[in-house]
Every structure is written in C-alpha cells, then in structure tokens.
C-alpha cells in the first residue's frame, strides 16, 4: 500500500515533469499548438508501474545486496579457479564461435566480428582504466592512428594488411607514449579531460589537413586482408576477417590474463589502490603508468588496422568522442578489471543496439535507459573482478581467515 502511494506520487511528479515536452507540440510556422493529453495519461500509468518495479528491485538489491554479492563472487571465483569447468567453458565457447559463421548469414557474421573487435578494444582499454586506474576518454585517438596508418600506407605504397599490422600497432604505441609523458602526472579527472582533448585534436587534424589525410571525404578502397595467392569473394573475406578476429580475441584474452598476474600487472593494481604506498615499495610511478598507457594504445592501434581493412573505407567521422564513450562503457558495464566482464559488456553494448532495431526509433532511448538501469542495479558491473586472496592453510586443510 505504501508502495502504491509512493508510486502514485512519483507518477504525478513525472506527469508534471514531462508535461511541456511530451504533451505540447508547437508548430511555430502556422502558430498551432497541438495538445497531446493522451500522452500524459500513458506517461502517468507507465511511470506508476515502472516506479513500483524500480522500488521493488532497489529494495531487493539493498536487502540481499551484501549476501548475494558474496555468493556471486563465489560463483565466478569457482568457475575461474576450477580448471575443469573453466576448460569446458572455454572449449564450448570456442566451438560455438567456430560453427557460428556456417549456420548464419554474412550479416550476422559481420555483427559478431564487430562485437569481437569491441571485446579486444575493451580489453585494451581495460589495461588502462581497469587495471591501472587511469581514466582515458580519448582512447579512440589510438584507434584512429591505427586505422589511418593502414589506410595511408596502403593507399600510397600499397602495403598489405600483414605488413602494416605491426606498424599500426607501433605507431599507436608511440602516440601513447608521446601523450602519456606530459599528462600522466595529472590526477583522475584532469587526465580524463586531457585525453578527451587529445582525442578531439587527432580527429580535427585528420578532418582539416587535406594534404595528409584527405580530410572529411576519407580514404576509400582499402584492401581487405589476403592470404597468399588466395583471391577471396566477399563472403569468404567476411568469414576470413571473422576468424581473424576470433584468433585476435583469443590471443588478447590469453595475453591480458597473463599480464594481470605478472609483475607489471600487480604493479598496476597496487598503483591504482594507493599511489604513495606503491612508490614507497619501489614501483616507478611514471614508468608503470606509461607502460599501461602504451599497451592499451597498442591494442587500439591493432584494432584500428583491422577496422580499416574490414570496412575498406574510413573517414574522421568514425572516430568521435561517442566512440570512446562506448568503449569505456564496455569496460565499466561489464565490470572493471574483469576479463569475462569486458567480454559480456562488449556483447551487450554492440549486440543490444543491433537487435534493438525492432524498436526502430526508440532504439537509442532504450539503450541510454538500459545503461542507467544496469549501472543503478549492478554498479560494480555485470561481472565484478574478484580479488585474489592469499590465505593461510591451517592444519586441518580448511581455509583460515
């Protein structure tokens, strides 16, 4: 009952709130006002029920919050730490990935390729944001560096995909170091805005410097990746890029996983938690941060090359701030610092809008709303990173506290 009254109040508040935008529509040319009162009614009823649900779930989250969080972590932890289950899981996922292109059409394969690209991009940004705790809002700049490296080298010198792949990655790394040097002493959100600015500068230069990048009209007819002497049809090329991305993804997951548990990986985690204590322990701050920045950039560069090869056409409009925001959302939504989290985040962020096409114009509305709802109910992300614990085994073999 109390629920009802509260929800009723909320509904009335929202009816007031949405009144000018939703109910009134003015035609300023012919000076006609259209009053859409029915919308107000729908709004009221809709909000009433949404508010009940919202309240219910929020309370449930509070009530069982702590307990279930602990349980959930246990589930992921058991999966992660039990090699048998983990191996079965990995093998079944890989099998599905391998069968996938042969049971669907090229449209589905393409979407899945894009999703895989975002997994790799997400994992790259995860090194910077999730592990090292540096908020980077201009990640897309390195993506652009990779893409333009391939496009330009291919256009001017006809260099092939395989030759440029390492060059693109290297270029992005160099840019990462160049940017990283001056700005890494900034803290938190100052770093965020500087990286955002850097991302915009790269895009604007590409847009305005015609002689270099062909400006806003972009570069077309970039070669797709080939294997020796194999002239591929479009479907074959699509499938080939798909498998290329599967290999990349597997490699990246493996690499980042190893990296996390390496000396440098631990240094990042420590640095993220407490900079001063970390320096006191003898971890070089600048070098460690720079490493994270450069490694993240390398991955973005690699994906940039693949992106250019896949779409065969690039222009600066593909590298806007929104792109950075989407990659960042992949990382945070899935759960910062957690590899399965990033994978699930990427699948949601890329596949959701694609399959939401049924909602047509409501697509982006639902997408934005979904981001808010997911964050409110799962603020640590869908799969939160569990902390590695080292514990003392007591005599009877059980875990000590």
């Amino acid at each position, binding site marked *: 009952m109390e629920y009802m009254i509260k929800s009723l109040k909320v509904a009335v508040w929202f009816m007031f709130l949405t009144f000018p935008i939703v109910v*009134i529509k003015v035609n300023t040319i012919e000076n006609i006002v259209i009053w859409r009162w029915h919308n107000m009614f729908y709004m009221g009823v809709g909000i009433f029920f949404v508010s009940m649900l919202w309240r219910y779930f929020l309370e449930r989250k509070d009530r069982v919050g702590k307990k279930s969080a602990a349980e959930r972590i246990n589930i992921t932890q058991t999966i992660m730490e039990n090699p048998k289950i983990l191996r079965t899981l990995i093998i079944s996922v890989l099998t599905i990935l391998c069968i996938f292109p042969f049971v669907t059409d090229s449209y589905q394969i393409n979407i899945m390729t894009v999703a895989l690209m975002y997994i790799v991009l997400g994992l790259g940004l995860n090194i910077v944001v999730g592990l090292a705790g540096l908020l980077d809002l201009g990640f897309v700049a390195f993506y652009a560096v990779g893409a333009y490296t391939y496009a330009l080298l291919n256009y001017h010198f006809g260099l092939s995909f395989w030759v440029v792949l390492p060059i693109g990655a290297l270029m992005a790394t160099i840019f990462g170091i160049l940017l990283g040097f001056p700005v890494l002493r900034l803290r938190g959100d100052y770093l965020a*805005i500087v990286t955002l600015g850097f991302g915009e500068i790269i895009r604007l230069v590409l847009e305005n410097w015609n002689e270099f990048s062909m400006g806003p009209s972009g570069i077309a007819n970039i070669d797709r990746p080939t294997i020796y002497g194999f002239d591929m049809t479009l479907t074959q090329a699509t499938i080939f890029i798909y498998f290329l991305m599967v290999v990349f993804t597997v490699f990246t997951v493996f690499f980042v996983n190893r990296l996390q548990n390496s000396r440098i990986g631990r240094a990042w985690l420590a640095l993220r938690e407490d900079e001063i204590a970390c320096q006191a322990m003898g971890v070089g701050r600048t070098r460690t941060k720079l490493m994270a920045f450069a490694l993240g950039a390398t991955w973005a560069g690699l994906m940039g090359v693949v992106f250019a090869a896949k779409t065969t056409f690039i222009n600066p409009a593909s590298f806007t*701030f929104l792109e950075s925001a989407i990659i960042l959302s992949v990382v945070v939504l899935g759960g*910062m610092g957690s590899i399965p989290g990033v994978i699930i985040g990427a699948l949601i962020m890329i596949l959701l809008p694609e399959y939401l096409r049924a909602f047509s114009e409501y697509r982006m509305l639902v997408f*934005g709303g979904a981001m808010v709802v997911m*964050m409110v109910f799962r*603020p640590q992300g869908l799969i939160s990173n569990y902390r590695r614990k080292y514990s003392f085994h007591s005599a009877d073999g059980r875990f000590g506290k």
Partner: protein
Amino acid sequence: MEYFLELFLSGLTRGSIYALIALGYTMVYGIIQLINFAHGEIYMIGAFTALIAASVLTIMGWPTIAIFIVATIAAVVYSSAYGFTIEKIAYKPLRNAPRLSPLISAIGMSLFLQNYVLLAQTSDFLPFPQLIPDFEFMEPISHIFSTAELAIVLTTVIVMLLLTYFIKFTNMGKAMRATAQDKKMALLIGINVDMVISVTFIIGSALAALGGVLIANHIGQLNFYIGFIAGIKAFTAAVLGGIGSIPGAVLGALILGWTESFATGYISSDYEDVFAFALLVLILIFRPAGLLGRSETKKV
C-alpha cells in the same frame, strides 16, 4: 583596432555562454566528484521548455516582455526539476559505487534525454523567437555588440556575483562547502547531505536553463543535440579554471571563448577547437589543478 574589439567582444559573449553552463558542472563536480555528462542536456531541455512556453503564449497574444519573463521562469523551474529528478534516479543510488559507475550512468542519461526530446518533439531545427527586444541606445553599435549579447554577458556577471555571495555567506553555501570537503564529517555535524546535493543540482540546472534561454535567443535556433557540444566545451572551461572553483569556471570559460575567437580571427577557424584543447593541455601541464584550483597535497 576595431577588428580586435569585435573579436574581443565575440569571445566575451562566447565565454559567458560557456561560463553559465560551466558553473553547473563545477558545482556538481565540487560536491560529488562526478562529471555530469547529462548537464548539457539540461541546458537543452531548458531552451526547449522556453521555446514551447513562448510559442504557446505568443499564440495567446501576450506582450513580448511578459512572454520573455514567463518563458524564462518556466525554463528555470523545469530544468531544476529535471536536474533534481536525474540526480535521484541515476546518481543517488550510486553514491557508494565505484567511481566510474556514475559516469557511465551519466552518459546513458545524456543519450536517454537527447532521444526523449527527439521522439517527443522533433529532430528538426526549430526557430527560436527573439524575446529580448533590441534597445534603442544599442542600435549604433549593434553590429559589434547586440542587445542579446549584452544580456548574456550581464547575466553571467550577475549570476557569478550572486553565486559567490551564496556560497561564501549563506548557511546553505557553508553546508555545501563542508559537504564538498568531507561528506562523512558534514553528516556528523548535522548537515543533511542529501539535501545539499539536491540543492546543488537544482542551482546548477537553473543556471544551465538561464544559459539555454539566452543563447537560443541570441542564435535563434535549437534542436535536441545542442547540449552535447556546449556541454563538452563548458566542461573543458571548468577544468581549465580548476574544477570545483566558481571564479575558476568563469575565468576558464572566458579564456576559452577568447582563445577560440582570436584563433578564428587571426589564424583560422579550421583549427579553433585544436587551439582550445591544446591550450587546455598546456595549462594543465604547468598547473595540474587548473588555473584557480587548489592543488591537493596528499599526506600519508
């Protein structure tokens, strides 16, 4: 010389516009350390509300000056209500969450609000009526500095003075500063932190709405997307001046406005944003906390 003056005034107007939006950013950041990406959308909703109110009243045949006053009040009231509600829905449940979660929630909110206005109203650009009449005495110089521009600059100055007074000398302002410094301690000495945060959002949103009305009146058009770019620029200005500092936001905004204006005038508008961001990077390298920001020394 006249050219310099023209560019100076054009930069002043632009800077004042950024300042009105940047104040909201800086206040919210100062209190809960959140980059409120939906702030630009509040500004857009304010402008839209004013347009709707003005159109309805025009059809009812009200005099211009009354329309202007009522439309502005409607914009301020509604934007504040939106700001208040957004905080309750998207940020309050996340107060103890990891630091980046509210940021993603804010980006989601921003997308949601843009599409909400797009769907409920239109994707087209709409003409915004001229609500502030041109003053007679401004006529001879209107080609360098118009009444609408004067209104923007004056409003910014007045708002900044009032806000400084409010923060420095009223009880609420003191509570805000206390909350900004240490939320837990503020709670312990009996400050209603939730309310302080709500008030911050309401004031910030009201200022954005004021900006929205004045700017739309100056440019004469709007659509659902105007909040995004203005928001990014205002945020840049807030950081430039030292985020969390109110005079800093205004100073940062003016410097940004002048940089863009002079870069356009004397070099080329092709790269105006490049100059703006390059300046930001330079200033932050030499003053990592912004121009007027306090640099924290962390003690162990």
